[in-house]
């Protein structure tokens, strides 16, 4: 059997260390909405970078172990589960679909993401949701410093604590933190939690597979004070 001929039914098992990254990603890119190869298991990921980057099909991909940088980068449509921890930039610039990390995520998780849902069941390191542009991120544990830096839109939910400078220079992204916030970044303030926010948060907690005993009322909401939107010399010390 030629190695690139894949079983047409059942779960496709792909041994990454035997067959290599290029073959994995090109096989995944060849899938379209019409495929019947909708379930994939990537074994032996061994921390490789760019696993399942650039997928654009409604398929289910499980990565059976920990990944290096940029796993699920620019994902569209696919549901990608990392059955381990994820290196830097997991689901960076994701467009749609769902990415679920069972373990922890390194820096820049969900960076610049434009859509879809990223769930991190462990903790996320610094710069989680940096420059996010519409993605929804749910972190079960804590997040590190400078998270949601320059975040433009979308939501970041943190069931644990947030590190220093949360939401520095952010625009219209919504941040929800259940635990403590070590410090807020420039132009980030606590905001009133209104009924529509509670409703949105309840939906995110459910879709983010959070512990059902966690209630939206336990969170605080943070967002932009919008003081840096137009330059004013008297705010210069904030930069």
């Amino acid at each position, binding site marked *: 059997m030629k190695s690139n001929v894949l079983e047409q039914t059942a779960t496709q098992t792909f041994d990454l260390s035997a067959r290599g990254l*290029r073959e994995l990603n090109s096989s995944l890119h060849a899938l379209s909405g019409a495929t019947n190869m909708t379930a994939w298991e990537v074994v032996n990921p061994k921390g490789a*970078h760019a696993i399942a980057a650039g997928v654009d099909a409604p398929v289910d991909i499980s990565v059976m172990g920990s990944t290096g*940088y940029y796993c699920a*980068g620019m994902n569209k449509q696919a549901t990608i589960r990392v059955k381990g921890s994820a290196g830097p930039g997991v689901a960076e610039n994701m467009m749609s679909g769902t990415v679920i990390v069972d373990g922890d995520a390194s820096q820049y998780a969900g960076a610049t993401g*434009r859509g879809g849902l990223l769930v991190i069941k462990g903790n996320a390191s610094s*710069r989680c949701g940096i420059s996010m542009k519409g993605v929804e991120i749910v972190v079960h544990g804590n997040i590190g410093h400078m998270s949601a830096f320059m975040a433009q839109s979308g939501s970041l939910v943190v069931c644990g604590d947030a590190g220093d400078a949360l939401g520095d220079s952010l625009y219209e992204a919504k941040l929800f933190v259940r635990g403590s916030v070590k410090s807020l970044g420039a132009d980030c303030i606590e905001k009133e939690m209104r009924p529509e926010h509670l409703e949105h948060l309840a939906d995110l907690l459910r879709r983010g597979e959070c512990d059902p005993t966690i209630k939206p009322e336990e969170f605080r909401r943070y967002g932009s004070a919008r003081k840096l939107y137009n330059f004013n010399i008297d705010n210069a010390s904030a930069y």
Partner: protein
Amino acid sequence: MTSEFPHTPPRKSYTFSDAVNADIRRAAATGIYDIRGGGTKRFLPHFDDLLFLGASISRYPLEGYREKCATDVWLGTRHAKKPIHLDIPVTIAGMSFGALSGPAKEALGRGASAAGTSTTTGDGGMTEEERGHSKTLVYQYLPSRYGMNPDDLRRADAIEVVVGQGAKPGGGGMLLGQKISDRVAMMRNLPKGIDQRSACRHPDWTGPDDLEIKILELREITDWEKPIYVKIGGARPYYDTALAVKAGADVVVLDGMQGGTAATQDVFIEHVGQPILACIPQAVKALQDLGMHRKVQLIVSGGIRSGADVAKAMALGADAVAIGTAALIALGDNDPALEAEYQKLGTTAGAYDDWHEGKDPAGITTQDPELYSRFDPVLGGRRLTNYLKVMTLEAQTIARACGKNHLHNLEPEDLCALTIEAAAMAGVPIAGTSWIPGRNGSF
């Protein structure tokens, strides 16, 4: 009888000149630094300080008009499955939609395609105007990632990871509220009318080792088809070029300090970075030291205006050049025909640089529909094609005179310098000598 001693004539300070004092007064009155478009306005050592020697008894020329002097260039031959082939080595540099109007982007696409060269997107993402009218389009991957998406990556012909820009190495982008129209706001996912400052560092990588992995990811997403360029500002060209090569770049784009910008602090434009003349030899040396000269192609920019500049850049070892400001002028920017309108804006044709205010009477650097609809993209494209063709003819004229049947065969040996500074920077001897300051040889 009054004193026969004449008064000391009034004398203004060189240090505190009228221009300097005006800057101080402006800062005091407004409380904000000066932001403007364009490149450096100060005098800098430049290609004007180099001359070609031409043919002689020891070198014979090619017959102008009859003997062929080829101008084509391949870009991205190192790793890309689909390298780019351009008819001429003059490309259009990345200029953002947002800074430029949709019709201006269309004109760049039309003009470049008809001349057989590429255009480049810019901060703010890819527009239909530009994709639709550009045969070869380079898609910039910038720190802001405005509009970034995998579909546009795949419909681009090459990807340019922007690390820096010559006008502001180490600086991020800036697009002030006046230009954040509904369309620009939507493409960038920002509130309308805010002063938008884009990041100076990429959000998900720092340093050369990360860059290598980022390039790998971009290659994987696009199935190794597209050439990947890395654009650097003229800061430390030797090391930056070497690190870009190490990170896996197919092409290095090097932008010297003269390079234009849509909007940056004047202090940044005038005081940070090195002139392109000083940058090219350092980048070429890095490529040669790594055995990668011509394997990783070098595109240079920053104040390129004519075929002579193209030929000089190539003689110093570049594979191609990029133009920004010159392309805008060809489209009609700062045209004296609009003098009355420039006067109304308190400026004069040739000096208009408040592009960030979005009031460009030429309709090029604006998002105001009334202004940009004055600009005819078909005519603009035609003008750009003409200009690109003239530059190419000029470069060929020089190359033939130096006995070269391809622009790439021009070499430093064909050049001499008029000043000590230019000789030292370019690494070519001062005219009439064999002296290259800092190297061997003497008057």
